[in-house]
């Protein structure tokens, strides 16, 4: 446990800005969009007060913000940015390009619903739409996790076996705007943890001119993409190793997933983000050791082994998705969990629950209903309704 910890009352945006201040990156590109705007507002205050050495680039759109990040990272600068929702969608083209160039950019995403209709509140449709972009996706349950994840993300992205950009996601408004008690590490510890940035193939290395972003035709494109998959595979181990190191520094344990009350659980909920907190609250209140929670922290790379391992004694599980994949069966997390179990000898019954779209509140009553549904499938042996909607009127 670190000796010098400062307890602060911060919301997710402020905590991330604080982490960024301690990291002191070379370049931060910014563009306002609710609900992440406070990150860049707070950071620009640090810039104006001379508390960081960062070159602050106020881009004229999120597409340009990510384009500038690509230029800055290729030029050998430690680069960070933040966005949400429509901004994420606007820069989507560039996300693919950033990962293909293997640039270690770290981006905070305050998850917000994608239009339309326009909605500024939380769901995971934004980052889910980028799940094929080649970025590592780490999700945070609360403000502490958001702060801790940003710091670890720097190490994960810059690891020589990975060198992929990382997005650290937190629930818009629920985490980004709600003040929580946060343990802030001392600046020296953070700087030692992230270390000095090592430049690789920098555009500013004039002696060794490099070409970034050539056209690769039918004879090479496939090989370049395969390389990217290899980096993503390495990320599994790197995320775990980084968590172990971070635990030594902070005393807080992380991994690819978090198993809560799973030792004797027969039924479990699988979920990403702040709703995991709601589930934990319900489980604690119930005092029932048969109810478990598996929280997914790393969605990309998808932790197949962790999931099948931690849920192997469960008879029924509910996968909660805060995003849609219209035309597919259930939500994106459900599809991937189901696929993870395909080759297993014993599989639990797996149900899909779409919840919380556009910031729809998810209550402990709804969680209670989910567990009841799971219990019922075990009792009756019947799956019942495969795809369900929590708190939706008219269903």
């Amino acid at each position, binding site marked *: 446990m670190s000796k010098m910890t400062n307890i602060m009352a911060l919301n997710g945006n402020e905590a991330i800005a604080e982490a960024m201040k301690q990291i002191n990156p*070379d*370049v931060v*590109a910014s563009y306002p969009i609710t609900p992440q705007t406070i990150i860049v507002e707070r950071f620009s205050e640090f810039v104006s007060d001379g508390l960081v*050495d*960062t*070159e602050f*680039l*106020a*881009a*004229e*759109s999120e*597409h*340009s*913000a990510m*384009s*500038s*990040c*690509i*230029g*800055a*990272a*290729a*030029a*050998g*600068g430690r*680069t960070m940015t933040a966005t949400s929702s429509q901004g994420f969608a606007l820069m989507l*083209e*560039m996300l693919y*390009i950033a990962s293909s*160039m293997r640039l270690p950019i770290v981006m905070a995403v305050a998850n917000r619903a994608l239009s339309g209709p326009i909605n500024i509140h939380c769901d995971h449709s934004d980052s889910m739409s980028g799940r094929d972009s080649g970025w590592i996706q780490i999700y945070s349950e609360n403000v502490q996790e958001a702060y801790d994840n940003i710091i670890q993300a720097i190490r994960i992205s810059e690891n020589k076996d990975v060198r992929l950009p990382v997005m650290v996601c937190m629930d818009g408004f629920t985490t980004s705007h709600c003040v929580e008690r946060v343990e802030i590490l001392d600046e020296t510890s953070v700087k030692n943890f992230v270390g000095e940035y090592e430049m690789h193939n920098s*555009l*500013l*290395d*004039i002696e060794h*001119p*490099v*070409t*970034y*972003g*050539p*056209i*690769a*035709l039918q004879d*090479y494109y496939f090989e*370049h993409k395969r390389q990217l998959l290899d980096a993503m595979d390495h990320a599994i181990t790197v995320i775990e190793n980084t968590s172990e190191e971070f635990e030594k520094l902070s005393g807080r344990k992380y991994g690819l997933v978090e198993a809560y009350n799973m030792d004797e659980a027969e039924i479990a909920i699988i979920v990403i983000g702040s709703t995991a907190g709601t589930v934990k609250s319900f489980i604690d209140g119930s005092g029932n050791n048969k109810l478990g929670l598996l929280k997914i922290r790393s969605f990309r790379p998808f932790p197949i082994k962790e999931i099948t391992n931690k849920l192997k004694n469960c008879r029924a599980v509910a996968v909660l998705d805060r995003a849609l994949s219209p035309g597919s069966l259930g939500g994106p997390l459900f599809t991937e969990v189901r696929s993870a179990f395909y080759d297993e000898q014993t599989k639990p019954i797996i149900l899909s629950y779409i919840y919380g779209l556009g910031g729809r509140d998810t209550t402990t009553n709804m969680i209670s209903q989910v567990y009841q549904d799971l219990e019922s499938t075990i009792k009756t042996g019947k799956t019942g309704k495969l795809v369900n909607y929590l708190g939706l009127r008219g269903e």
Partner: protein
Amino acid sequence: MVRLKEIAGSEEMLGCGHRLCTGCAEPIIVRQILHATENPVVISNATGCLEVATTIYPYSAWKVPWIHSAFENAAATMSGVESAYKALKRTGKISKNIDFIVFAGDGGTYDIGLQSLSGALERGHRLLYVCLDNEAYMNTGIQRSSSTPKGAWTTTSPVGKKVVGKAENKKDIIAIVLAHSVKYVAQAAPSHWMDLMTKVQKALKVDGPSYINVMSPCPRGWRNEPEDSIKLSRLAVETCYWPLYEVENGIWKLNYKPKKKPLEEYFRLQKRFAHLLLPENKPLFDEIQRLVDERWESLLKKVSL
């Protein structure tokens, strides 16, 4: 002052082996520009002919650091490079003087790249933005852009029974750039290499953004003979279709005042304008000549102030 005999034979920063068309003016312009530089350079290149033909994996014709990320963001990408440079210089990790040059076509500048250009100019990054203006989206097969002049044939403004070539006028990109209080803005042409190279040297001395619009004849898109590319550039200047001027700290200066030749001489060598020389299109041709004349007169007024 650029002395050809002093620089001739010096190392090519854009080497041979690129696959730009025979007689394409873009590599001529790029070679002239790079030979005018004094400091090491980093290049940001928008998607387009130059980018594609010079970097077909695993080959690159560039012997200087070079980045292409996407089509509309060459200026934004370079903004990031320049910002990292500032940060690294400030923290003492880099000490060399480096210049930053952006290459983009008219599509990547006048149209899809306009926002990114505007942002970079407004933020005041120290970079030279060069638009290689061949007046259409050439790499995708000669489609009209907002830089395509009135009456020109392109595949998306073809010459038909109802509409004869592009109906709209060419956008005034220099006016747009000047609206950003850019300290050095100029128009140049590869035929007048000394003028172009001098302008590059002036532009690179600005501690902030600078912009040069360079006309770039395209044998494929303009349907001219490859050996006429420089001749065409010269005719464009001589007919006052493409005036050579600069605006330095708001002061307009004409770099060359030709004995104005008739526009037909410029049009005759390019099939994209062939229909304008037919008798039935004389009213349209006259209108285009009038637009060129008005633009020229307006320029003369600005330089005399």
